[in-house]
């Protein structure tokens, strides 16, 4: 005969203040655990979504980011003419020769400067980025000093809202549009005409070439061929992989920090649960004796108390996950160390994270309840009944 679950629930309810405090401690731990996972997930999703499966990106060998890379005009022309690259409907190659620079812009409100990515590209570059659409205004006109700003940049940085101007390279640049690239890295970039930007920054070389392959399976032969070409030293990567790599350092840091904290915190929360459950066992000694006298087995007592503590953990877990879910409205804008440029990303809750957090809280509850439950189960019947 097992002890009904309602017994455990009622016991928790009978000691509301203590139960709430313990569950609150666990909820905070789960909250921290979940938000760190959400942050790392958001960062990864943002950068992975920035690239497209079908696109390939070429940068100078040894360079880790587009900003560090240089590709001379002749080299870019050689790459563009590769037979593996797809044709646009008008018969030209679907390859975009791009220039990328970092510029320091002051943030709105605080005036603190941060590095913003400026990408110079051509009409083809726009075609290659199907995930980017205009939220407001229009695209820049080729050959003009017009730029469009990513949504996150327009919100956060001075002079980058529609109609505003910013000055660099001895010219004023007008923001004529705001682009919405969803949760991708492009929302943290400013785009303009490649040739104009190269003139302004006195650059003679491109940074990268982005191209669409005629067929995804051509990636390997294409890569082998360009990387073996003695006329240039370039590396070709699938765009999704390239961007995923750009998040590694920050993601690793967040993960290490988050996991260390979660372990330390969970120790605190488990201790809280141990204290609570020991207290519960101690104050119900007579009750336990009575239950045993009624014929409930030691195993039944053990599971009743374990159930009580896991319930405590789960309540905390659900509260923590609920609390963490509200973080989804927040966007974090920070410097990505690898690219040295500003990147905005959001806390992203996924079913996997919710599950992990709940399992974590259940584990905390069980770990906290184990010793007290054992004590309750091993209690001597006669002594228990006799205690006050």
């Amino acid at each position: 005969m097992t002890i009904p679950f309602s017994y455990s629930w009622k016991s928790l309810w009978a000691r509301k203040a203590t139960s709430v405090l313990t569950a609150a401690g666990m909820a905070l731990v789960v909250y921290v655990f979940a938000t760190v996972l959400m942050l790392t997930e958001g960062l990864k999703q943002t950068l992975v979504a920035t690239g497209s499966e079908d696109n390939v990106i070429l940068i100078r060998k040894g360079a880790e980011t587009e900003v560090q890379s240089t590709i001379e005009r002749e080299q870019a022309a050689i790459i563009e003419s590769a037979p593996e690259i797809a044709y646009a409907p008008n018969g030209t190659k679907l390859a975009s020769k791009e220039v990328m620079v970092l510029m320091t812009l002051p943030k709105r409100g605080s005036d603190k400067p941060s590095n913003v990515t400026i990408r110079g590209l051509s009409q083809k570059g726009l075609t290659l980025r199907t995930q980017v659409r205009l939220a407001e205004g229009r695209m820049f006109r080729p050959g003009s000093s017009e730029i469009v700003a990513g949504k996150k940049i327009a919100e956060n940085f001075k002079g980058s809202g529609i109609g505003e101007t910013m000055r660099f390279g001895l010219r004023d640049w007008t923001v004529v549009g705001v682009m919405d690239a969803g949760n991708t890295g492009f929302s943290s970039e400013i785009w303009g005409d490649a040739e104009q930007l190269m003139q302004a920054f006195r650059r003679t070389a491109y940074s990268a070439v982005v191209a669409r392959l005629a067929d995804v399976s051509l990636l390997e032969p294409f890569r082998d061929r360009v990387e073996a070409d003695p006329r240039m030293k370039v590396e070709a990567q699938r765009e999704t992989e390239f961007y995923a790599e750009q998040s590694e350092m920050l993601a690793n840091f967040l993960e290490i920090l988050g996991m260390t904290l979660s372990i330390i915190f969970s120790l605190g929360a488990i201790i809280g649960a141990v204290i609570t459950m020991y207290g519960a066992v101690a104050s119900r000694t007579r009750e336990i004796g009575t239950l045993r006298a009624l014929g409930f087995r030691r195993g039944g007592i053990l599971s009743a108390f374990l159930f009580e503590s896991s319930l405590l953990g789960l309540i905390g877990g659900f509260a923590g996950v609920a609390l963490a879910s509200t973080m989804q409205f927040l966007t974090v804008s920070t410097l990505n160390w690898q690219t040295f440029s500003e990147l905005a990303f959001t806390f992203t809750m996924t079913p996997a994270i919710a599950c992990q957090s709940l399992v974590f809280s259940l584990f905390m509850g069980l770990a906290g309840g184990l010793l007290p439950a054992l004590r309750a189960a091993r209690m001597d019947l006669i002594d228990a009944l006799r205690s006050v």
Partner: protein
Amino acid sequence: MLLFLRLALRNLLRHKLRTGLTAFGIVIAIVAFALLRTVVDAWYAGAEATSANRLITRNAISLTFPLPISHANRIRQLSGITGLSYSNWFGGVYIDERNFFPQFAVEPKSYLELYPELVLAEAEKTAFIKDRKGAIAGRKLAKQYGWKIGDVIPLRGTIYSGNWSFVLRGIYRGAEKKTDETLFLLHWDNLNETLKKTDPNRAERVGVFVLRIDRVDRAAELSDAVDRLFQNSLAETLTETEEAFQLGFVAMTEAILIAIKIVSFVVVAIIMAVMANTMAMSTRERRREYATLKAVGFGSRYLLSLILGESLVLSIGSGVLGILATFPAAGFLATKFGTLFPVFELSLQTMGLGMLASCLIGFTAALFPAWRVITLPVSEGLRSIG
């Protein structure tokens, strides 16, 4: 007072397991709190170690844009500038990407003059200045990789492509505790000569100029003077004090810093919940005793101080243990982080904050149970069972 302490201790010892667990919890919380604050401090260490008489001039567009070396002569002519050097961020990879440490290509003689806190034996200094393929490293960095003078250090260029190798000519130590001992300095000339051959467009350029000014209070005026020299030129400059320059880096990663700060307070909050729980339980058990005390004639103030005393003894005692435990923990983390943080030291301020936090924990944990005891009618208290 002594009697009081004894009473508090006795009460704590009544439930050794619970007291021990709570103390352990507080120790963990204080360690976590202190470590997080130390990470935050380490972040600002770069700015702390700056000198007020140094200015940094960089390209106004962003740090990733170089400045022509020809700017140097025009800056030197300004009165008030007493020294000038320059450096380029080299950004090479040592063996693999995980081994990160800052590398700068500098003009050795003037650079070491401007940074007297990098202390180098005279012989090592001359050896470095003379050898264009030479380099020097900080003590901490050399220790991390077990480098000795004369070792050849290979770096794979990311910004300046190719495979480079440098001969370690000296190991400097910091004049002060906060001096960064993780730098790797090589010859700017060496870099420039190679660029002239391989990538002439990028030769004759420097990342930043470091200027020394004669009087600290002229920093703003001289910064302006430098920037005015190059206004509307192809390479406009932005000059600021070294501290502002370093803080600029910190500000860029501010979001993470804020998160760490928030988390460090959440730790305290969690442990407050645990501690309050313990106090609530121990007072609930003793309701009858407190009611007896009240019936005998002890006032609420006495009861309050009794409960508060017990709570504070536990929390402050554990707080002290926590601070003590932080030292080995911080030492362990410092070796884990390696050269990621140039300085990783537990500060006095952090210790003070840790103690303050433990007092706060003890205080708030006692409030609610004490209030319950004080407002509870005597008759009901006497009637209650554990």
